[in-house]
């Protein structure tokens, strides 16, 4: 079992009538990684998660978690996973502790000292009724519930919604610890900064199609940077255009701004030969820009 990927989908397809929510999704999530699953609203993220958890059944194709078939072995799978659904709903008339006890009873083998440790880290109040908690505090109960059995695979759909920035940071730490422990985190999210911070790889889904799977590091290296150059004298923008990777050159007297995804060395060579360079700043594109680039390319 240990050689099997954490999550594997093959041609996974789900149609709701005429609506194609997932189309031929092939995805491998490795063990020990934090995998970020990105996509706009309605792209199929939640459908994918609900399908691999056997909440809904694929129209065609298959999925497995830790080598076990998502439908035929769904009960065995659930022994090894933790799950935070998107738009988390809990039983409002139970306290946080009741809620956790309920799920611990259904699951068995939960270490309560670890539960208490998690509650302490997330500053969760487990004595109040869940219905009386704010959405962020309710979310903490959902997170503890998913982490408490130290699952092999954590599947979380928008898990940090409602958490304040401090708690988000703690939660990100918890995810990295899971990965460091050799276990896997599958994180569906809109919060790009979070994915950027914790994920090893990201998959981008749009309109049911998986359009890219990349390592976060390589995604960033491909990223287009904005370069600002400040000269002692007015310059001619045309000089920069032949340099490989240069785009969108804008000139304002002694200031040049351009988009660049080539090797910095070749750009600097051209600059230094012609002009007297006073200052240079580069602005690295964040994941959001990469993300948008992918969307634009895919929809083009």
């Amino acid at each position, binding site marked *: 079992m240990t050689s099997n990927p954490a999550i594997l989908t093959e041609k996974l397809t789900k149609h709701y009538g005429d609506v194609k929510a997932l189309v031929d999704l092939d995805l491998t999530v490795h063990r020990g990684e934090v995998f970020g699953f990105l996509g706009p609203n309605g792209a199929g993220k*939640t459908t994918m998660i*609900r399908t691999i*958890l*056997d*909440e*809904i*059944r694929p129209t065609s194709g298959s999925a497995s978690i830790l080598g076990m078939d998502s439908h035929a072995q769904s*009960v*065995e799978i*659930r*022994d090894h*996973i*933790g*799950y935070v*659904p998107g*738009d*988390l*709903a*809990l*039983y*409002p*008339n*139970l*306290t946080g*502790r*009741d*809620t956790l*006890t*309920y*799920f611990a*009873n*259904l*699951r068995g083998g939960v270490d309560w000292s670890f539960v208490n440790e998690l509650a302490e880290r997330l500053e969760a109040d487990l004595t109040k*009724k869940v*219905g*009386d908690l704010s959405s962020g505090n309710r979310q903490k109960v*959902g997170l503890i*519930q998913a982490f408490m059995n130290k699952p092999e695979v954590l599947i979380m759909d928008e898990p940090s919604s409602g958490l304040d920035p401090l708690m988000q940071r703690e939660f990100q730490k918890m995810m990295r610890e899971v990965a460091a422990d050799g276990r896997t985190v599958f994180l569906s999210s809109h919060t790009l900064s979070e994915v950027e911070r914790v994920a090893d790889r990201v998959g981008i889904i749009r309109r049911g199609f998986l359009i890219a799977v990349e390592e976060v590091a390589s995604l960033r290296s491909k990223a287009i940077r904005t370069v600002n150059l400040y000269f002692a004298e007015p310059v001619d923008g045309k000089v920069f255009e032949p340099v490989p990777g240069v785009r969108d050159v804008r000139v304002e007297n002694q200031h040049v701004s351009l988009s660049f995804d080539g090797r910095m060395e070749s750009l600097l060579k051209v600059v230094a030969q012609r002009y007297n360079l006073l200052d240079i700043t580069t602005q690295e594109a964040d994941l959001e820009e990469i993300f948008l680039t992918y969307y634009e390319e895919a929809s083009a």
Partner: protein
Amino acid sequence: MLSTVLTKTFLDRWKGEAIGAMTLILLFLMGMAVYRDIDLAVYTDLPEVFRSLMNIPADADVGALAYGAIYTSYGALTLTSLALSMGSASIAGEEKDGTMGILLGNPKSRTHILVSKGANVILLTGLGSLLLWAGGVAVPALLDVDVTGIHVGALVLHMFLIAVFHGFLALVISAWTGKTSIASGVTIAVMVISFFAVGILPLISGLEAGVKAFPWYYFSGSQPHLNGVSWGHAAVLLAGIVGFAGAAVVGVNRRDLRDRELGAGLVDRLRSHPLTQKVVERLAGSTRVSRIWVKTASEHQGVLIVVSYVMFLLMGVAIGPMYNFIDDALISLADAFPPEVLSLFGGGDISTPEGWYQIETFGLMAPIAFMVVTVMIGSRALAGEEAKRTMGLLLANPIKRSTVVLEKTLAMVVYALVVGVALFAGVALGSIFGGLGMSITNIAATTALATLLGLVFGALSFAISAATGRVRIAVYGTIAVALVLFVANGFLPFSDSLAGLAKWTPVHYYLSSDPLNNGMNWTHAGVLLILFGLLTFAAVALFDRRDLRQAA
């Protein structure tokens, strides 16, 4: 805004109203077809007091019988139940769903929302009434039955008013408390008590005038289908409606809105009290969440307590001694009763204690009581978790879907057993206190059959809930099927050619063997048990097969 809130509420609710009305028209068609077929002397020879109870005049014809039996009882109760469900969900429902805040984020007042909700009760009850009126006119024409002298319009107008009356009573409670459960619970209690008071009080000499204290009297007391609109009675109901509307406006404006409905029940209070904390913490905390069925069973304790109490004390213990008060009057009349007539009330020889209990308690009230608890769990156990979006999380645990269905079915069985024990104990004590000398074993047998019948309908609602994932379809679907089966079982034996069909209704296997007198009929119990098993199996299979719903 007014029209928007109204339109949305209307669109949310119109299907239930239309299904309710169409089911009633179907029953009416069936009833009238059977009445056309039989010798009406069985009705017209009845003692006067019973004819008046059942809304049957001395010279009753097919029309008068059909309207009296179907429209004034089942019809009015159904229309009223729908109205009170709308009324109780109105303000409190939005609060329970947590949508009140966003609704009031728009530049309109609470009064506006309340008026929209109230207008919807009137509009949809009007729609239901209109359908019933159309059915009431069309069915006799279709069957070629002469209904001269029957005031369908007047009857339907009275029905409309009694329904809106209860709808607005629920609305006012909903507006003052923000709790749907209190609004619907109190209003249902008013409806049921008043329905039975109007039926029973005229039987007890000296208390006849007491009926005027009950709203239902102003609906049926004047026999509007025979005598036309009683403007005096209509005015009483209308005054009530206007009064409730005014009180609702005051109520909704003066209190804090609730965020979400979270009742702090008795258990919660005990749990926070230092004296009881330790014990209750164990019971309400760790025990409550120890198993799926225990948790499910903990969720509807309020209804279970009320139903068990009503069946034990009011329908059990109290009915026995009452027999001695009206015994003499009834025995002299008993000979005049053809058994077929009483079969509508569950049958039985009213001159005997067993017959008295059968008519008062077991015939109609016991099946209703069992269905209240079994259908409540059956319809909500699966579809309710889906509507509240907790099913996904529950099934993320290493348990099979079939386990969930079976554990929740177990909770339903436990509830049915609690009601069964309460009913058995109540009737047994009633028999002892009243000195009636009924067989305790036979009471146990009858209670067991009632429990099984309740479980059959509960399992039906489970199966519908498992197949559709929708609470409302499960509730209304089960009630519609139960209504048709009960009436069919009551009516079919009247017609020689159709009598055999009664065996096809599960209701037949409840009282047809007269278990209060003859003891347990194991074959009948077996039929009900097998039916329960089959429906439970269907629920497991249907739930296992489909996609879970994501939201309400």
